[in-house]
């Protein structure tokens, strides 16, 4: 038996000689993305990896995740119910109304979640919305009784009733939205816990999910950048009238260019208008003012932005009335591409809004701003609104207005978040100053939720239409495969949802009733399906006979 060699306990003592540096120090450890592998085994890192995994699962499989979560919650409630029931049987003094009611409600709730998780989750979301609406109504009555300035109470009422109504009306969409939001927060927290070089984030303060807040609190305060940003986005001081006039002039030019570009269906011209328009700067001003809690600046920037919006729509209407050529909202490609936004447009707008805030805040990347302006496209949708309203096509105009609202809301929200993340707006300042702009923030968040719901509904409708269209194509394709002498001239869907299949062939189409029945089944009888046909005459000559 050999004596214990204390050197063996030193790090690197078990490494081969070749791997030990000459000076006796331990060689550099293996790293993953710059992080020592040993550090990844720490508790915080493992917790971060777990959070990241959950976030990825939530993003990749949102529906099964909801079901599994519902099931798990149901089982947990079931265990609670069983334990409490045993206690009720054993201990007579525990038989109180709240306990018995809790057990009864819990049993029904758990059974619902376990047996029908999909419907139950939706009902729970709706129930939550109902509770919020009731709480908002109670708060409103209390406010009216006190007859005092509303203040925070009004914001609370708006938030509770608006949010509750959305939850009741659109539970599925908001469930998906909520899942995505939870996934984003979990992912961000997990990333910070894994990649943060300072391991004491979780040790020094609240651990776990609050690591995100801890990290944000430790962001550097970039006061200098904020001053530069303020000069860019706020029209203040003695030069403000001149700058406002320039803003209006540029907005006017951009609106004219965009409206004409839409009329002549020239994408290049429309992109030119995007580069000229200064509207994003005004919206960034609103975002920064709300983040920092400056109500006057928020109000002034909102006024400037609304002036720009009015100019763009008004000029669009004038151009529409004066245009020497007809504008057909149903066929104009520049209009059609802007009248039916979906959540994908929201995703683009969020990314572009964040990029815009980043580029505005940092001098070294300000060259990216034109690209941001093209990506986010604020003026063309407004021009389309003016043009289509002038044509009396309110539906198309409203669709374009929704696209603009999507982009504007995304700029305001993503801009604010980016300002906090890059340190322009310190987190402590944000939390302290929100009292001053609470109503505006609540209205903004409610508007964002509403826009998200409308986009999701529009996306669902568009997807259903695409699916129905694909089904129609398949049915018609099968039919023509059985009847070689017939061909499909075209398949189209009118604005009222009617699907028209144009056929060409000799005489009357064979198996017409079967074809119509198949088409009706594909569209589930929701919309009319019409089959038209033209008699195809043909003459031939030659053939080598």
């Amino acid at each position, binding site marked *: 038996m050999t004596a214990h060699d204390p050197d063996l306990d030193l790090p690197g003592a078990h490494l081969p000689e070749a791997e030990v540096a000459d000076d006796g120090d331990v060689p550099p450890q293996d790293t993953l993305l710059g992080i020592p592998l040993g550090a990844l085994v720490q508790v915080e890192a493992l917790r971060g990896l777990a959070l990241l995994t959950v976030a990825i699962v939530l993003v990749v499989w949102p529906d099964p995740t909801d079901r599994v979560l519902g099931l798990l919650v149901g089982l947990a409630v079931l265990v609670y119910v069983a334990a409490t029931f045993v206690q009720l049987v054993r201990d007579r003094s525990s038989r*109180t*109304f709240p306990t018995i009611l809790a057990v009864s409600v819990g*049993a*029904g*709730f758990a059974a619902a979640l376990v047996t*029908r998780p999909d419907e139950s989750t939706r*009902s729970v979301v709706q*129930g939550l919305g109902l509770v919020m609406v009731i709480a908002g109504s109670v708060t409103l009555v209390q406010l009216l009784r006190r007859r005092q300035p509303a203040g925070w109470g009004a914001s609370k009422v708006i938030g509770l009733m608006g949010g509750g109504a959305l939850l009741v009306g659109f539970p599925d969409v908001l469930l998906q939205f909520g899942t995505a939001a939870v996934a984003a927060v979990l992912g961000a927290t997990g990333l910070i816990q894994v990649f943060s070089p300072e391991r004491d984030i979780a040790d020094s303060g609240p651990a776990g999910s609050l690591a995100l807040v801890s990290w944000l609190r430790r962001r550097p305060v970039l006061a200098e950048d904020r001053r530069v940003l303020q000069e860019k986005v706020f029209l203040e001081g003695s030069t403000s009238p001149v700058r406002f006039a320039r803003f209006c002039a540029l907005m006017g030019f951009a609106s004219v260019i965009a409206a004409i570009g839409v009329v002549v269906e020239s994408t290049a011209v429309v992109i030119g208008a995007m580069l000229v328009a200064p509207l994003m700067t005004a919206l960034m001003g609103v975002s920064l003012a709300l983040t920092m809690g400056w109500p006057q600046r928020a109000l002034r920037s909102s006024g400037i932005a609304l002036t720009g919006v009015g100019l763009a729509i008004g000029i669009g209407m004038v151009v529409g009335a004066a245009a020497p050529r007809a504008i057909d909202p149903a066929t104009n490609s520049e209009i059609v591409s802007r009248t039916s936004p979906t959540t994908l447009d929201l995703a683009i707008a969020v990314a572009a809004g964040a990029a815009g805030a980043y580029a505005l805040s940092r001098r070294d990347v300000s060259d990216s701003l034109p690209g941001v302006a093209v990506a986010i496209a604020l003026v063309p949708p407004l021009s389309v609104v003016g043009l289509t309203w002038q044509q009396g096509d309110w539906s198309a105009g409203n669709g374009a207005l929704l696209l603009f609202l999507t982009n504007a809301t995304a700029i305001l929200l993503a801009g604010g978040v980016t300002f906090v993340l890059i340190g322009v707006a310190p987190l402590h300042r944000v939390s302290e100053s929100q009292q001053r702009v609470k109503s505006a923030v609540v209205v903004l968040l409610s508007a964002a939720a509403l826009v998200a719901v409308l986009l999701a509904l529009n996306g669902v409708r568009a997807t259903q239409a695409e699916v129905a269209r694909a089904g129609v194509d398949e049915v018609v394709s099968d039919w023509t495969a059985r009847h070689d002498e017939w061909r499909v001239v075209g398949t189209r869907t009118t604005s009222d949802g009617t699907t028209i299949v144009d056929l060409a062939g000799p005489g009357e189409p064979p198996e017409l009733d079967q074809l119509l029945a198949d088409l009706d089944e594909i569209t589930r009888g929701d919309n009319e399906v019409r089959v038209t046909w033209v008699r195809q005459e043909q003459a031939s000559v030659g053939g080598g006979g």
Partner: protein
Amino acid sequence: MPAAPGRAIVRAPPPAAPAPVCHRVVMAPGTEGRPRPRGLTAVVVFGLVQAVLVVALGTVMVVARDDVEVRRELGVDPGLLVVVGAVLIAVGVLGAVLAVLLARGSDRVRALYGLVNGINVAVAVYSLVALREVQLESVWSLVLPIAILWFLYGSPASQEYFRR
């Protein structure tokens, strides 16, 4: 007649006043003399009415077992009608007995009532959450069992009545 010497006159104590007859029925131990809460009386009356209706339904089924129209409506044979009717009568009688026992302050019957109405609440909550097609009706079917549970276990008067 004068009293005999050496004998004291002992006056008989006045007869004790008869005990007040508050309840003709035998009360559960500890509940004698306590006024029955109105909510609990309402639950008892509801239970009795329910029991009477069930007994009546059972009786009708037994009596009308040979009625052609009833058989055509229900689509069952007379033998089954008699069995179901008898079961209903038994259930109704049992319900009436339980209601009477509850009125007397039986804590076990209160627990049984609590169990039955707790199950009713659970079923209503299940329908409310999982069966969206009957969601509105489920709200109404929640109200009655919750009210009964409140009268049995929630109200202070009820707690006082059942305290032993």
